[in-house]
C-alpha cells in the first residue's frame, strides 16, 4: 500500500496499546479499562499482536483492492470474535451481574478495519448483483456469529438475553412503522405525483406544503398528531377498535407517512417531467395512446428516480421511527431512550445498533436494486 490510505494503519497499530475491553461491576457502574494482555491473557495477546502485525504487513504489501478488502474483512470478523472471546474470559471469574464491553482500542481498530473495507469497496466498484451477494454474505456471517454464542458474554448481548422477547416485539413494531408508513406513502404519493404532472398550476403549492411538513422537527410532529388522532379515536365509531389512539402507534405512523410524502411525490414529478422530450415525441409519433405511453415509456424511465426516493424515505423512516418511542409507539427507540434514562450504554447500543444495521442494509439493497434497473447508470 504505497498510497495515502496507509495513514489508517497508524491508529490501527496504536489501538493495540489502548484498552481492548471495559469491565463493569454491574450494568450501570463506572467501567475499568482492560488492556490487551489483561483481557486475553499473555499467550493469546501475543498471538493477537502477531496477527495484527501480519495484517498490517499484508495491507502494506498488497496492492490489489480485492486482496485488501479480503484482509480488512478478515480483520473485522477476527476483531469481533476476539472481543467475544476476551469478554468470555473476563466474565468467567466475575460475578454474574458483572458486564464486559468493548473498549476504545476495540472501537478504533474496528473503525479502521471498516474504513479499509469501505475504501477497498469504493475502488472495486462491484456490480449490483455482486453487491447484493456481499450484503447477503455479511448478513449470513453476522447471523452465524451471533447464533454461535461466541459473543454471548459481551454486555450488549447480555442486555439482549435479558429482554429477547421485547427485542423482537419492538423490532417488529419498528419494521411495521418504517416500512408500513413507506408503503402507504408510495400508494398515495406516486399517483399524487402523476396527477401533479398534469396540474402544473398547483404543483409548486403542493410541493411547498410538503417541504414545510418535512421541515417540522420530528418530536413536534409526533406530539402534535396526538391531538387529531385522539379526537378521531374518541369521535369516529370503530376507529378505536382499529387500534387508533391518541398516543402510540397511530400518530407515529401518520407522522412517518407525512414525512415520506415529499421525497416520493417530488421525485415522481421530477422523474416523469425528466423524460426527454424526444422520447415522448417518438412515443406519440409511433401511435402510443396516452395510457400506453405512461405505462410503457414514462413510468419505466422515471422508475430509477422514484426508487431513489424510496431509498431516501426508507432510511429516513428507519431512523425517525426511533423517535416514536417518545410517544409510546415502541420500536428500537424504546431501548435507546430507556438506556439514556438509566445511563446504560449497552441498552442504548441494543436499540441503536439494529437501527443502524437495518438502515444500512436497506440502503445497500435499494442502491443495488436501482443499479439493476435496465438502463440505469452505475
Amino acid at each position, binding site marked *: 500500500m504505497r498510497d495515502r*490510505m496507509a495513514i489508517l494503519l497508524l491508529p490501527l497499530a496504536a489501538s493495540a496499546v489502548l484498552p481492548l475491553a471495559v469491565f463493569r461491576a454491574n450494568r450501570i457502574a463506572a467501567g475499568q479499562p482492560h488492556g490487551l494482555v489483561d483481557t486475553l491473557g499473555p499467550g493469546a495477546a501475543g498471538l493477537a499482536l502477531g496477527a495484527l502485525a501480519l495484517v498490517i504487513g499484508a495491507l502494506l504489501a498488497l496492492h490489489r483492492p480485492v486482496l485488501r478488502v479480503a484482509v480488512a474483512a478478515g480483520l473485522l470478523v477476527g476483531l469481533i470474535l476476539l472481543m467475544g472471546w476476551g469478554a468470555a474470559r473476563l466474565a468467567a471469574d466475575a460475578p454474574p451481574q458483572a458486564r464486559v464491553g468493548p473498549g476504545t482500542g476495540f472501537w478504533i481498530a474496528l473503525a479502521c478495519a471498516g474504513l479499509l473495507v469501505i475504501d477497498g469497496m469504493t475502488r472495486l466498484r462491484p456490480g449490483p448483483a455482486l453487491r447484493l451477494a456481499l450484503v447477503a454474505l455479511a448478513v449470513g456471517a453476522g447471523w452465524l456469529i451471533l447464533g454461535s454464542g461466541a459473543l454471548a458474554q459481551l454486555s450488549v448481548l447480555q442486555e439482549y438475553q435479558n429482554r429477547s422477547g421485547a427485542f423482537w416485539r419492538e423490532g417488529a413494531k419498528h419494521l411495521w412503522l418504517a416500512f408500513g408508513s413507506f408503503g402507504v406513502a408510495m400508494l398515495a404519493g406516486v399517483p399524487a405525483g402523476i396527477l401533479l404532472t398534469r396540474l402544473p398550476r398547483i404543483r409548486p403549492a403542493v410541493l411547498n406544503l410538503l417541504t414545510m411538513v418535512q*421541515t417540522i*422537527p420530528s418530536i413536534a410532529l409526533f406530539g402534535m398528531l396526538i391531538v387529531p388522532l385522539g379526537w378521531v379515536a374518541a369521535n369516529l365509531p370503530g376507529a378505536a377498535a382499529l387500534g387508533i389512539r391518541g398516543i402510540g402507534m397511530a400518530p407515529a405512523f401518520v407522522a412517518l407517512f407525512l414525512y415520506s410524502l415529499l421525497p416520493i411525490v417530488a421525485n415522481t414529478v421530477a422523474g416523469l417531467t425528466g423524460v426527454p422530450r424526444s422520447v415522448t415525441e417518438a412515443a406519440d409519433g409511433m401511435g402510443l395512446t396516452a395510457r400506453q405511453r405512461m405505462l410503457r415509456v414514462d413510468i419505466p424511465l422515471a422508475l430509477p428516480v422514484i426508487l431513489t426516493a424510496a431509498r431516501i424515505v426508507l432510511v429516513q423512516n428507519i431512523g425517525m421511527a426511533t423517535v416514536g418511542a417518545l410517544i409510546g409507539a415502541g420500536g428500537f427507540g424504546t431501548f435507546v431512550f430507556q438506556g439514556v434514562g438509566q445511563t446504560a450504554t449497552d441498552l442504548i447500543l441494543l436499540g441503536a445498533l439494529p437501527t443502524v444495521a437495518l438502515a444500512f442494509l436497506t440502503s445497500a439493497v435499494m442502491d443495488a436494486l436501482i443499479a439493476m434497473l435496465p438502463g440505469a447508470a452505475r
Partner: protein
Amino acid sequence: MTGALIGRLVLLAGVLGFILAPDSFVPLLRPFAPDGMPVIYDRAGFGNLTLWHLGLVVAAIVPSALLAILLAVLVTRPRGAEFLPLSRALVGFGQTFPPVAVLALAVPVVGFGAWPTLIALFLYGLLPIFENALAGLVGVPASVALAADGMGMTPRQKLWQVELPLALPLVVEGIRISAVIAISTAAIGSTVAARSLGEVIIAGLNANNLSFVVQGGLLTAGLAVLVYDGLGLVVAAIRRRPR
C-alpha cells in the same frame, strides 16, 4: 409572491407573539390542558428556551460548517484526491445513521446536558454541508477551472476567487439542510437534559398535558420553518447576485 410574504410575516408574528406574550394564547390552548393543570408551560420562559435552542444549533453548525468546508476543500485538492471516493462513501454511510442514535451514544461518553446534543448536532451537521460543498467544488465547470489555471492563478487564488464563490450557493443550501436537522435533533436533546423547546413537548408527554405538547410543537415547528425559509432567502439572494 405576496402570498408567501404574508405567510412568512404571519408565522413570524405568531412565533414572536407566543414567545413574548404566551398568556394571551390561553383561551386557544385551554381545551387541550387537563383540568387543574397549567395551560402554559411555566418552568422556563419561552424566550429563554428559544434562545437556548437556537444557540445550540448555531454553536454546533458553525464549527460543523467550517470543518465540512475544509474537508471538502482538502479532498478536492490533488493531494487529497485519494480520499475523495472514501469520503463520499463515508458520508453516504454516515447519513444512514439516525441522529437520535448519535445523540444517545454521546451520553455515555460526555454525560447529560448540552454537550451530547452539541456533539450530535456537530457530527450530523457535517454530512449535508460536506456533501454539498463537495458537489459545489466538483461541479465547477472544467472550462472555468482550466481558464483559472491558464490565466496564471495560483491554486490558492483559484480556490478563493473562483472555486469557493461558485460553490457558495450549494454550501449555504447544505447549511440550510443541516440547520433543519439540527433544530429537530436539538428538540430531542431535551431527553438528555439539554435546554431547548423540546423540553416543553417532553414535559407535556410526561404529564399527559396536550396543551404543552401543542404549544411546544407549534413553536418548534414555527422556528424550523422560519429558519429553513430564511436560509432559503439567503440562497436565493446569493444566486441572484453572483459575486
